[in-house]
């Protein structure tokens, strides 16, 4: 029971950390893109295209971390 509680706590804390990291990353990306488009509105399409790929890679890392948090709970 004790071990289970620690596993659940670890997964919960991990989820919080994942959200902090992913939120910071996406926030920075969005801020950078918005600034760049604000400075040069004609390049909006290109900037969106350049932002897309790192955004998805970041999302992939966050999802992977979430899956591992889920595994902690399932395989505890």
């Amino acid at each position: 029971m004790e071990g289970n509680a620690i596993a659940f706590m670890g997964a919960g804390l991990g989820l919080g950390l994942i959200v902090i990291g992913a939120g910071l990353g996406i926030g920075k990306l969005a801020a950078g893109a918005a600034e760049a488009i604000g400075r040069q509105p004609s390049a909006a399409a290109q900037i969106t295209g350049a932002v897309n790929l790192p955004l998805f890679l970041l999302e992939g890392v966050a999802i992977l971390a979430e899956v591992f948090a889920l595994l902690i709970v399932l395989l505890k």
Partner: protein
Amino acid sequence: MFQPHEAAHAAPKAATEGFNAGETIISHVANSSIDHPLIHLPKILGIDFSVTKHVFMVWLVAALLFLIVTTVVRRYIRAEKEHPVPRGVMNALEALVEFIRDAIVQPNVGNKWVRTWTPLLLTLFLFILAGNLIGLIPAFDVLALLNHTVLHLPEDSFLTRVTHGGTTATGNFNVTAALATVTFLTIIIAGVRAHGFVKHWKNMVPTGLPWPIYFLLIPIEIMGMFVRPFALTMRLAANMTGGHIAILAILSFVFIFTELFASAAAGVGVGVVLSLPLAVGISGLEIIVVLVQAYVFTLLTAVFIGMAIHAHH
């Protein structure tokens, strides 16, 4: 934990035995157990080929896509002389094909290989999109409700088994792993076709470095080769499963509150005020996620193919 029979009876059980939200949700998003498949098939070479819920959905998606796309395109080709401008579904299909070719494949793969890899990426995109979207249509859940209230079919009939909860085949890690395996092989084949077999593997590490660095670099590159399809697998499956879990968790508030206050009115009140609007909102969000995930899978595959073809080292 993965018993599908518990899902269909979760609602009546809530009144007597207590409602287990976690178990109900898992049995909704998980594949049906191999012990209770939809269609029993014999074992070949020790592998059980029985058709489970997700296998059924994969074949359904493939059949639907094949029928719709081929009929639409054939009808257009037959009447091309009279109506050279595409109409209706053909119009949408052409817009989609053009989008994939011009916005995803061409910028990443390059002009030389665009015609080689567009068909594969189109197939991937359409299959993933259809597989994702069909999970959002609660057709099978409506059938289950009908079965539960009107038809009362026996427990082991095909219809009863097929209606154990919602089904998104792309929310299953095995399905997405198969799709990512296609990507994995495609990257290698694209590199080999562009540079030849030996050159493709040489391209993966830069040349002209001091030799001790290769001890570090080669394992990293080999790991990266496997991490990319693994990330694709996890991203698609986890996104599809995650949305369904969120919707089901919000909807299970109804049963949790009914139990907590021991009155149906509390559950219905929470359902109307909180659960239903939130679930509708998340379903709307899910439609965007479905489109984005199909786009992401296709885009990343195109990027990886492009990386294999235009090796900068």
